[in-house]
């Protein structure tokens, strides 16, 4: 029970931090913010690594493998595409 309370505390506080950090983001950056935060939500990859690497049964390994693929697409694709979008914004500043 104690562990649950600790986890819940972290969860709620992190949501508050999220609200504080992201309020007043300019509309220009809505798309990169979305794709960038999207990449961060690929953190499930950490969980997928456990499932794929623990080699418990064949089924859990297969589930883990697919999860690793999905989450890596999310992470790699998300960060790369955000970088690409932001690169287009930056060009103008350098000019």
């Amino acid at each position, binding site marked *: 029970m104690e562990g649950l309370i600790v986890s819940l505390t972290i969860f709620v506080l992190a949501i508050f931090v999220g609200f504080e950090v992201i309020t007043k983001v300019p509309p220009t950056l809505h798309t990169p913010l979305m794709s960038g*935060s999207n990449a961060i939500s690929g953190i*499930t*990859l950490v969980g997928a690594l456990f499932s794929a*690497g623990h080699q418990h049964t064949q089924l*859990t390994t297969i589930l883990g493998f697919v999860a690793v693929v999905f989450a890596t697409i*999310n992470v790699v694709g998300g960060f790369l595409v955000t970088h690409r979008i932001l690169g287009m914004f930056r060009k103008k500043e350098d000019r």
Partner: protein
Amino acid sequence: MSAALINLSYLMASALFIFGLKGLSHPRTAVRGNLLGALGMLLAVAVTLLNRRIVSFEVILAGILCGSAVGAVFAVKVPMTAMPQMVALFNGFGGGASVLVAGASLLETISVGTPPSPRFLVAVAATGIVGAVTFWGSLVAFGKLQGLVTENAVVFRGQQAVNAVIGLACVVLGGWLVAVPDDPVRYLALAGVASVLGVLLVIPIGGADMPVVIALLNSYSGLAGAATGFVLDNNVLIIAGSLVGASGIILTKIMCKAMNRSLGNVLFGIGGTVGTAPAASGADIYEGKVKSASPEEVAMVFDAARRAVIVPGYGLAVSQAQHAVRDLSNLLESRGCEVEFAIHPVAGRMPGHMNVLLAEANIPYDKLKEMDEANSGFPQTDVALVIGANDVVNPLARTDPDSPIAGMPILDVDKARTVVVIKRSLSPGFAGIPNPLFAADNTLMLFGDGKKAILELIAALKEF
């Protein structure tokens, strides 16, 4: 590596995510922010691989290679106009991964023989529901934006009742899983029913409401990650997931506010207004009042203009006209005309969609004005050029309290001296209502495909 060190590294990764998101909310720091986020992810993944629970690396390596290749190809190849569906698809993969991880954890725990704790099971059930809704909802959103399925709202009688029943079924199945956890088939059933719910929740949302649903699915994908954190008792998942959940909710709220509608109205209420909007009333508003102009006539208007404001809409993305618009803007400036762009918050199919397209065409972002600033400039504007936008410039939002878009903040292009609207036809926008702007005394309609019309306008303007 000891558990304490691993957890400290996770804490560092969480801090990097927070710095990263903070950076992403300012243009100057955005690139660094994104890199910090990526660094945090790299750190989290690297220390996870040092955990003693992980005994085999072949499967992991294969999975990471496959995923990286697919993700990189998508990220590099996708055209900027297709960014909304790309983000939707990535969202979905994140949600799908969460469902699979929770399922694998449940299987492991059951087969070990120790009775799983209720808290673990509640987290598994929650991950299954949120993750499956995210996965299938995102796939439907992707299909709609990519044009694989109809982009219109798909509504049927009793839809909300059906959704409520299926939602309830998810909760009941979840409760059953928690009460009698020995059979993993229940998790499969739960994920299956939640998948149906994900599809049903997104099909009634169409067209101009897509930015809201994309932002909401973004939030869900974060929450699915946080729920997975509860399953695995892993703080970095909880923190990163809830940060993204909060960010998605903020964007959702901004989008709803820009349409003057509540989230509930966007998700469930639109069904009533779309089909019933009186299509016939368009005829008497437009009859004999719409002035169709040739590119030459429009060029004449621009020839005399000293200040022009361009208002892009989804039509700009559809006809890939961003580079032609850039050329027009440069030509006008070289002739001594001041050019600005007025961006409505929900123009396009995802938050910030227009900004990205115009940035791709090398239009400096200080020329892109937000709604309030743009509106104060329209009375001093010689020409407002509307490209493929409709509802966001419909003056009925200000004047007709019974209109479905009543009270929605709009761009007041009608206050400019002359309005030029580039549009294929007089067909209504997503709200399904006629637009009196098209029949206004100071409006010229330039009918045609956005890109083609602008190229013709440029050619005509060069003749002067």
